[in-house]
């Protein structure tokens, strides 16, 4: 066991039985994992990452089947092991952590009982011993007050806390291998950073090997020693983290890196390069390279005629690539911002002006238990989006950014304050009260690709209906109008006849953008439109939005929690925390010191896909206060790492203005500047 790898997967072949017959989704995957090592598995969704991981413990469902190859774990063959043998290994020697912690926890059992279950069933330890183990584990995953947490139910914990519990549950039996399937997707950046740090720390303490599945290259860098890139069910490149990120040899790996926005560049300096096309099916595999159809370096014949062998490259024995041209490709360079940062130009005339906007949700009255406190979702927000520019509102979940979007779009009405849209006050107007011309002026792009289009209607119907409602006009040229809009979002006209369930996530989002464009709006409000997508789709949609904006001179209000995307796309940025604007200014000023301490924490939490990136890590303590328990003074005071004293708790922070840059903080701007430039800065300054 000490010699040889902990996990040895060889030529693993997985097929699904479908109505049409057997479909091979993984034609043959091989990799090894040494004890205590962390391997990252990346690729777009649908590349077979999870299938490979689940097949290790043979969780393939009824339709999936391993049809060839071997999986040896601690010297035992798992592909032929019986049910009883598997049960002894699952949860005890191999543990799993899934994406959605709420789905992994039993809602009717206290956290403590769930933690104690594994040692009691697998090792037969006594209740008291299991309890002691559980308490130690809770302390190790850094949950404050483990005794109290033991008696809580999952719904009483935050998402980050739940994921910590799941990790504790996985590690409590001291497994030799931990499989983590997108463990931080869906968590806020600051929570994600803390969980990733925790994983790294626990790994060195428990000597568990980790198979870490993620589509986020940034989080892979933080946790893993080696990376394996998957495409169409094949490992196309594998090697140590540093090699892969500084010298990627497979065009697909390069594509994944090129479509990531980074904190150091924006749309005016280094445009994103999305990977052409979309993930192709793992079935109907071509003769040669699976990636040839999307590859910019493809050579007909050499690449497409026969299967591509896996080979080491550049004399690096631990770096394997499945590409015939791996050695010939030019050296890859990270996209860099140009030396001269161009200013966006003057402030411009305001298109959307939000003034002292406050939105309070009055909760329903509860009988017998007294009135609930009203929830202040947004309080006294002041932002302006200039005509033809992009205003980004960024913050973690629950900060009120979506509420601002809803008030802008009329889906909610302001409690007080004004929203001025092209000179007309609309804050008090619900959508039904807005005139047709006003409805046309502002349209919205939504977050969730699965619910943005009505599953019962074809794409053509959705766009055609929007055209008719917003443009008026005769129905005769509807088909032409639909085709034209589909062309704007780069979709083929044939898509009009399809229903959303036959579309990929990226196609659905494009169709939704086409629908929003039907009325030729002056303002597009996009509520987190890229967060649910793969990096390549994200890059394509971000590019599309920038293009459309430039072509039509539309104003874009972009709501997001992703700072890298905001850095790339925005002209003006508002950072929101607990319903207030912490910092506001032109993008290059907000992303350079002095920062608001909250902006600083957010920036340091962003996972950067660069192993050489030095991070000055600021970990936020505690949790975001609930919207009905906002502190009296500075809303950020309860978690602020730069708290100066009682003044933070007592008085609301003054808004300091440096030209068009505003920071709401008690610490003077030059003091912030001094404190923050002393730290290592993000890559923006490295040239």
């Amino acid at each position, binding site marked *: 066991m000490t010699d040889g790898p902990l996990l040895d997967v060889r030529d693993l072949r997985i097929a699904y039985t479908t*109505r049409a017959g057997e479909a091979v989704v993984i034609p043959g995957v091989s990799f090894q994992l040494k004890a205590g090592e962390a391997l990252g598995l990346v690729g777009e969704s649908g590349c077979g990452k999870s299938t490979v991981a689940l097949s290790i413990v043979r969780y393939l469902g009824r339709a999936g089947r391993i049809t060839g190859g071997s999986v040896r774990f601690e010297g035992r063959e798992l592909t032929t092991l019986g049910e009883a043998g598997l049960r002894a290994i699952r949860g005890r020697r191999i543990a799993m952590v899934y994406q959605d912690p709420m789905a992994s926890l039993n809602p009717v059992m206290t956290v403590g009982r769930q933690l104690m279950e594994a040692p009691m069933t697998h090792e037969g330890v006594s209740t008291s011993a299991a309890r002691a183990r559980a308490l130690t584990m809770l302390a190790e995953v850094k949950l404050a007050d483990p005794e109290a947490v033991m008696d809580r139910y999952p719904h009483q914990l935050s998402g980050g806390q739940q994921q910590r519990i799941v990790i504790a549950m996985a590690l409590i039996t001291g497994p030799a291998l931990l499989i983590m399937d997108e463990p931080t997707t869906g968590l806020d950046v600051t929570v994600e950073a803390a969980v990733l740090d925790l994983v790294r720390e626990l790994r060195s303490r428990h000597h568990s090997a980790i198979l870490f599945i993620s589509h986020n290259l940034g989080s892979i860098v933080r946790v893993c020693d080696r990376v394996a890139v998957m495409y169409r069910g094949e490992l196309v490149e594998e090697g140590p983290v540093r090699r892969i990120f500084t010298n990627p040899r497979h065009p697909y790996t390069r594509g994944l890196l090129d479509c990531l926005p980074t904190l150091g560049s924006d749309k005016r300096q280094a445009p994103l390069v999305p990977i052409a096309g979309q993930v192709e099916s793992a079935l109907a595999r071509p003769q040669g390279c699976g990636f040839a159809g999307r590859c910019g370096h493809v050579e007909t014949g050499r690449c497409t005629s026969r299967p591509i062998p896996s080979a080491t490259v550049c004399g690096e024995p631990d770096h394997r690539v499945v590409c015939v041209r791996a050695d010939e490709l030019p050296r890859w360079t990270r996209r860099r911002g140009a030396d001269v940062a161009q200013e966006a130009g003057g402030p411009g005339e305001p298109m959307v002006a939000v003034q002292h906007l406050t939105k309070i949700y009055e909760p329903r009255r509860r009988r017998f238990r007294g009135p609930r406190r009203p929830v202040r979702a947004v309080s006294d927000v002041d932002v302006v989006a200039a005509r033809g520019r992009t205003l980004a509102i960024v913050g973690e979940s629950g900060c009120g950014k979506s509420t601002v979007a809803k008030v802008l*779009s*009329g*889906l909610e009405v302001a409690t007080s304050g004004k929203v001025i849209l092209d000179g007309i006050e609309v804050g008090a107007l619900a*959508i*039904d009260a*807005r005139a*047709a011309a006003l*409805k046309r002026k502002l*349209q*919205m792009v*939504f*977050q*969730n690709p699965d*619910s*943005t*289009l*009505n*599953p*019962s*209607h074809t794409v053509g119907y*959705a766009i055609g*209906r*929007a055209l008719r*409602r*917003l443009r008026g006009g005769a129905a005769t040229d509807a*088909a032409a109008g639909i085709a034209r809009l589909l062309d704007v979002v780069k979709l083929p006209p044939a898509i009009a*006849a399809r229903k959303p369930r036959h579309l990929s996530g990226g196609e659905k989002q494009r169709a*939704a953008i086409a*629908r*929003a464009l*039907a*009325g030729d709006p002056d303002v597009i409000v996009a509520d987190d439109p890229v967060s649910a997508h793969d990096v390549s789709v994200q890059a394509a949609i971000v590019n599309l939005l920038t293009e459309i904006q430039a072509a039509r001179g539309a104003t874009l209000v972009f709501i997001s929690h992703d700072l890298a995307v905001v850095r790339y796309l925005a002209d003006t940025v508002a950072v929101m925390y607990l319903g207030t604007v912490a910092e506001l200014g032109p993008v290059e000023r907000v992303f350079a010191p002095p920062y608001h301490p909250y902006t600083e924490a957010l920036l340091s939490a962003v996972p950067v896909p660069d192993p050489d990136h030095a991070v000055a890590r600021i970990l936020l303590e505690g949790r975001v206060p609930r919207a009905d328990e906002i502190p009296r003074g500075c809303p950020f005071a309860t978690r602020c790492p730069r708290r100066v004293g009682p003044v933070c708790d007592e008085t609301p922070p003054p808004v300091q203005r440096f030209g068009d840059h505003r920071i709401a903080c008690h610490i003077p701007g030059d003091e912030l500047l001094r404190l923050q430039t002393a730290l290592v800065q993000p890559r923006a300054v490295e040239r």
Partner: protein
Amino acid sequence: MSTPVAAGTLSASSPAASRVWARRWRRRVAALAESTPATIGIAIVLAWVVLALLAPLIAPYPPNANDMAALAHTQPSKAHWLGTDHLGRDLLSRILWGARPVLVIAPLAVLGAAALGSLLGLAAGYYGRWIDLTITRACDIVLSFPVIILYMIILAHFGSSAWNIIGVLTLTKAPIIARIVRGMTLDLREREYVAAAKMRGESALYIMLVEILPNARGPLVVDMCLRTGYNVIIIGALGFLGIGLPPPDPDWGGMVKDTYGMMMVWPHMALVPCAAISSLVVGFNLLAVGLRELGLRD
């Protein structure tokens, strides 16, 4: 092609559209045929529909004709395959003719209940507040009555006819459909496509009927299928209580009522209509199970 080119895109696109429709339906039927319960269910229901349609052609005797000669020997025989009842009427013919009112009344009542219930449920779920409160409470009140007593009261007052039975069944089943639709509306109205519809200024009626209702159809169709089966039972029960369709035309429930006293001597007289009722109910239930499986797979 004889069609002039100028005839427009509509006529050109309709054959293509109908082909798409045909293909979609063929795929649906093929998928349904893969489920064993659905196949059996379809077979039973279809068989009854065909028998009912052909009743005038295949029934060996008129349904109300008395064969005095057979009274001496009511058991199944060459002349009367299923035997005769106590008045010498051919049971097979009466069963075949009796299938007709059931297969009209049960589905019509379900359609009525679905239409009324969907509207109520949509309004309650979409508007919320006092509209929701009023509709849900009204539904609760209807549902709190013992149904059979309710039927007796209403039918005693208005007289029993096919239309009155349909009306009563519609009124009493609509609240159940309303509850289902309301629950789904509460979820569906929060979808982003509903927000998108509001943003382009659609009316509430459009949003409810075009954006929300089609997405609730899956569970709704399954429930309608189940409820058709239940209606068959209720129509039987009404016939048995003597408030079903007026005699002498054959009515499965009524046939049981007339003959159950003779169970000890001639069990077949009551058992044959009972078997007819059960087989039809089982058919609808199996169809519902199949449809549900289909919905889960999507």
